[in-house]
C-alpha cells in the first residue's frame, strides 16, 4: 500500500522545512554577531547623559537596619541615604559628617574624667549639624543619639558588635543639638565614633519599647523601608524590590549640597559575568568598586572595553593572607614559617596576575595607614635563604622530591581556601609550584565558602595553611586576630578570630598598650614594633591588599574611591554627569 500524506500535513511540513532553513540562517547570523560582538559598539551601551544613574553591585542587603548585620551592600546604600556621625575621608582623615567639629583634648571638647569605679574615662562633647533633619522634616537631635545608644547596648536587639555602646557609661543631653558622651576608658581612638549610626527616635522608639527581642524583626527599616523619616542623607529610598534593586530619590529635606542625579537605582546582580553584560548592554551605568568585579576580571574587561569606560583601581583594606596553624608541629618552628615566605615571589604574583595593582603586604597594616612603618624590611623572595632555613630546621634530606626530617617525615602541608574563587585558586597553584621548588609539598584541599568559614576556620580544623581575607579599618588594632585571648577553642565556644593560634606575650602587651596610648608618636613606635614582630614571627603569610575596580561611564565625574570601609558613595552629592 502506498502511504498517502494528507495535504494539510504536507503543507505544514513544507512550511516547517522553510522555517528550519530560516532558523539556520538566523542562528548563523547570531553566532556571527556574537563573535564580532566585542568589536562592535552596541546602540544600547551608548551612555545617555541624564539625571538617572543605575549602579550594579554583586550583593543585596539582608536588612536595612544600620546597626544589625554588617554588610557592604547596606553600607554602600546607606552612604547615600544616611550619614554616620563621623567617618574617614578619602585621605584617611577622621572628619565630622553629622557633627560640627571633631572633639579633641586640644580643642577642649574631650576631657579626662574619673568614672564611678575610679577608673580614668573620657567625656567627649559633640554638636550635631544645626540644619540636620530627617527626611520627614523632624529635626535630628541629641535624643536620637541617646536612643541609638540604648538600642546598641541592649543585648536583645540583635546588634552585632556592641563594644562601642557598652563602653559608653552615659550620654548627657545639653541641648537639642549638643550632647556629651561619657566613656569608661581612655583609648587612642577616644574621639572616633565613626561607627555610630544615628537612629530616628520618633519612628523607632515605639517599636523598640514594644519589645526589644522582637525589635530586629519589626524595625521600620525593614517593615517600612520607604519611610523618608528613616533617612537623613542626600537621598531617600523610594522603591525596594527584595533581591533585585533599591531606588533612591532626592531627599527634599537634605541640608547639604543638592545631589545632581534625580534618581539612583542600585541593582543587585550577583554573577559578575552577567554584571558585565548588564554594563555593556546599558542596563546599568557603572559597577561599584566596593562590590563589583575582581581585579583580574576588571583587567580583562579593560583590555576589551577600556576605551568605552573609565576604570579606576584603588587598593584597599581587604587583606589577603594565609593563616598558618601554629599547632601543627611542622609550623611551630619559626624557621619553617620564614622559609615559606622567602620561597614565594609575591611581587611577581602581584605583577603577573594583577598588573601590580594589588600592593604586596608586609604585614596586616596597609601602606596607606598612618601607622604603617615603611622602614621595616619584609622577608624578601630568596630561594637560597628559604632552603638554608629549612635545612637548619632539620628538613635536610629528600624523599620523593620532598624535604624530610631525620624521622623520615615529609614536609607536607595542607593548603585550603574557598573553592570556586577563581583568583584564590590561581594564586594557590602558583604558590604550590613555588614551594615545590624548595622541597615543600603542599596539598590543595578546598572547601565551599559556607563550610570553610562556617566550620573549618572558626573551629581551627585546618591543619596547615588557610588562605582568605580580612576586612580592616584605618588604625584597626588586631586584638581579635592576634591577641592570645582570642584563640577559638571549645571552652570559649570557638569565639575569637585568632585562627593561627598565635601566642606571643609581647604582642599581647603591645595590643593592650596601643589601645590606650594617646600620643600619636609613641603609638606609632608601638605599631612599628608590632609590625616588626609580625614580619619576624610569621603568624600569617601576608600576600597583598586587594584592590577595588571602579568601572564608570566616561561622563560620570566626582566618584572618589576611598580604599577603606567607608564607601565612595558617601560623597554621592558630588557625583555629576558631564554636560
Amino acid at each position: 500500500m502506498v502511504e498517502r500524506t494528507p495535504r494539510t500535513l504536507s503543507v505544514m511540513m513544507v512550511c516547517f522545512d522553510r522555517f528550519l532553513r530560516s532558523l539556520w540562517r538566523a542562528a548563523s547570523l547570531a553566532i556571527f554577531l556574537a563573535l564580532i560582538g566585542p568589536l562592535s559598539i552596541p546602540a544600547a551601551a551608548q551612555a545617555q547623559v541624564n539625571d538617572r544613574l543605575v549602579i550594579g553591585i554583586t550583593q543585596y542587603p539582608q536588612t536595612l537596619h544600620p546597626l544589625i548585620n554588617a554588610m557592604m551592600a547596606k553600607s554602600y546604600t546607606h552612604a547615600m541615604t544616611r550619614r554616620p556621625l563621623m567617618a574617614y575621608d578619602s585621605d584617611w582623615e577622621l572628619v565630622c559628617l553629622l557633627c560640627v567639629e571633631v572633639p579633641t583634648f586640644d580643642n577642649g571638647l574631650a576631657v579626662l574624667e574619673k568614672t564611678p569605679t575610679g577608673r580614668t574615662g573620657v567625656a567627649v562633647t559633640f554638636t550635631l549639624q544645626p540644619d540636620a533633619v530627617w527626611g520627614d522634616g523632624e529635626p535630628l537631635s541629641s535624643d536620637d543619639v541617646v536612643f541609638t545608644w540604648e538600642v546598641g547596648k541592649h543585648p536583645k536587639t540583635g546588634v552585632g558588635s556592641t563594644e562601642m555602646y557598652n563602653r559608653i557609661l552615659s550620654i548627657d543631653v545639653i541641648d537639642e543639638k549638643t550632647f556629651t558622651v561619657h566613656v569608661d576608658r581612655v583609648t587612642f581612638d577616644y574621639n572616633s565614633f565613626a561607627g555610630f549610626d544615628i537612629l530616628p527616635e520618633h519612628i523607632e522608639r515605639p517599636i523598640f519599647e514594644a519589645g526589644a527581642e522582637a525589635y530586629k524583626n519589626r524595625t521600620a527599616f525593614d517593615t517600612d523601608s520607604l519611610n523618608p523619616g528613616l533617612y537623613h542623607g542626600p537621598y531617600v529610598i523610594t522603591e525596594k524590590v527584595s533581591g533585585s534593586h533599591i531606588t533612591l530619590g532626592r531627599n527634599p529635606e537634605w541640608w547639604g549640597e543638592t545631589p545632581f542625579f534625580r534618581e539612583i537605582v542600585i541593582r543587585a546582580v550577583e554573577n559578575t559575568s552577567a554584571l558585565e553584560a548588564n554594563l555593556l548592554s546599558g542596563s546599568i551605568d557603572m559597577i561599584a568598586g566596593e562590590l563589583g568585579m575582581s581585579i583580574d576580571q576588571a583587567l580583562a574587561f579593560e583590555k576589551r572595553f577600556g576605551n568605552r569606560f573609565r576604570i579606576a583601581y584603588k587598593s584597599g583594606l581587604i587583606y589577603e593572607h594565609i593563616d598558618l596553624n601554629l599547632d601543627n608541629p611542622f609550623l611551630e618552628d619559626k624557621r619553617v614559617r620564614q622559609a615559606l615566605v622567602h620561597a614565594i615571589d609575591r611581587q611577581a604574583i602581584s605583577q603577573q596576575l594583577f598588573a601590580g595593582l594589588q600592593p604586596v603586604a608586609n604585614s596586616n597594616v596597609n601602606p596607606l595607614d598612618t601607622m604603617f612603618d615603611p622602614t621595616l624590611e619584609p622577608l624578601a623572595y630568596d630561594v637560597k635563604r628559604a632552603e638554608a632555613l629549612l635545612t637548619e630546621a632539620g628538613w635536610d634530606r629528600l624523599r620523593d622530591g620532598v624535604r624530610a626530617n631525620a624521622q623520615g617525615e615529609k614536609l607536607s602541608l595542607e593548603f585550603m581556601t574557598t573553592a570556586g574563587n577563581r583568583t584564590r585558586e590561581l594564586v594557590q597553584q602558583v604558590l604550590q609550584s613555588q614551594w615545590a621548588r624548595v622541597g615543600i609539598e603542599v596539598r590543595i584541599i578546598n572547601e565551599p565558602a559556607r563550610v570553610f568559614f562556617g566550620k573549618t576556620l572558626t573551629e581551627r580544623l585546618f591543619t596547615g595553611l588557610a588562605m582568605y581575607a580580612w576586612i580592616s579599618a584605618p588604625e584597626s588594632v588586631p586584638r581579635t586576630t592576634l591577641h592570645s585571648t582570642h584563640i577559638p577553642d571549645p571552652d570559649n565556644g570557638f569565639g575569637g578570630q585568632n585562627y593561627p593560634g598565635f601566642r606571643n606575650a609581647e604582642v599581647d602587651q603591645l595590643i593592650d598598650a596601643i589601645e590606650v596610648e594617646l600620643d600619636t608618636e609613641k603609638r606609632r613606635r608601638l605599631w612599628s614594633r608590632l609590625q616588626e614582630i609580625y614580619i619576624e614571627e610569621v603568624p600569617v603569610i601576608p600576600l597583598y591588599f586587594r584592590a577595588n575596580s571602579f568601572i564608570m561611564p566616561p561622563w560620570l565625574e566626582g566618584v572618589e574611591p576611598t580604599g577603606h570601609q567607608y564607601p565612595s558613595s558617601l560623597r554621592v552629592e558630588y557625583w555629576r554627569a558631564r554636560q
Partner: protein
Amino acid sequence: MTAFLARRTLHALIVLAVMSFVIYGLIGLMPGDPVDLMISGDPDITAEDAKRLRELYGLDRPIVERYANWLSAAFGGDLGYSRLHGAPVGEVLGPAIVNTAKLVGAAFVLSSLIGIGLGLIAGAAPRTFRDYTINIAAFAGISIPPFWMALLLILIFAVVLGWLPAGGMNLDGTLAGELRHMALPVIALTLASIGGYTRYSRASIIEAMRQDYIRTARAKGLSKRQVVVGHALRNAMIPVVTLMALDFGTLISGALITETVFAYPGMGKLIFDAIMGNDFNLALVALMLATLMTLIGNLLADLGYVALDPRVRLHDGEAA
C-alpha cells in the same frame, strides 16, 4: 475518585510532615550557623557578642527543640521570620513565588507545547532532514549548560543587538517593560527544556507508530494525520506527562542558574540563599512548598494517565 483523592491527600500530608523534619535536620547539620557567617563579615564581633547572638536567635538550643517550636508556631499560622530578608517568611515568599511562577510557568507552557510539537513532527517522519535537524537542536538544548545559554542570549540580544534588557526586574512598571525583562530568561529556560520534551515525545511517537493498533488504523485507510493525532498521540503522551509532572515542581522551586544570571529575584535564588545563609524558616517553608508542588504534579500526572489511557484505573492511592 473521591476516595483516591482523599488517600493521596493523606499521603501528601504524611510526606510533608516527614520532609519538614528532614529538611530542618539537614539544614541544621550543615557546618556553621548564622552567627559564624556574621563573624566572617565583621571582625569586631567578640566571643561575648557571638554567644549573645546565638542565644538571641535560639541557636544554642537543640535542633529538635527548635523544630518543635517552629512546628507549634506554624500550626498557629506563624511560619516564622526570615533572618536573611528581615521580614516574615510569608512576605518574603509571596513576591518570589509570583516571579517564579510567571517565569517558569511561561517557560513550562512554551517548552512543553513547542517540545511536544517538535517531537511529533520529528517522530512522524523519522530519519528525514526534519528529524535530524530537530534532533540536533534538541541535543544542543539538552547539552548546552543553562548559564552559558543565558550568557549567550544576553550577549546577542542585550549587548550586541540591544533589543532586550540584560536582566533584572522591570523598573518602569509597564506590562511591555515586564514582558521585555522576562523575554530572555523565559527563552533561556524554554530552550533548556524543549530538548527533553522533544526527545521524549519523538521516541514515544515512534514507539506508538510501531504498535498493532496503528497498523490496523492504517489498514482501515485513515490518513497519516488521523493516525498520528487520533491514535498515536494519546498513548505517546504518557511518558511525556511523567516528565511534565516532574517539571511541575520547579514552578515553585524555580530555576537557580537562570535567576542568578538574569538577576531575577525568584524562588530558586531565594532557596539557595536561604540554605547557604542558614535561614532555617525560609528554607524550610520554601522547600516544603516545592515538595508540595511535586506531589501535586504527580497527582495530576496520575489523573492524566487515566485521561489518556482508559485502561488505567485509580486504586490504592496510585494509578495502575
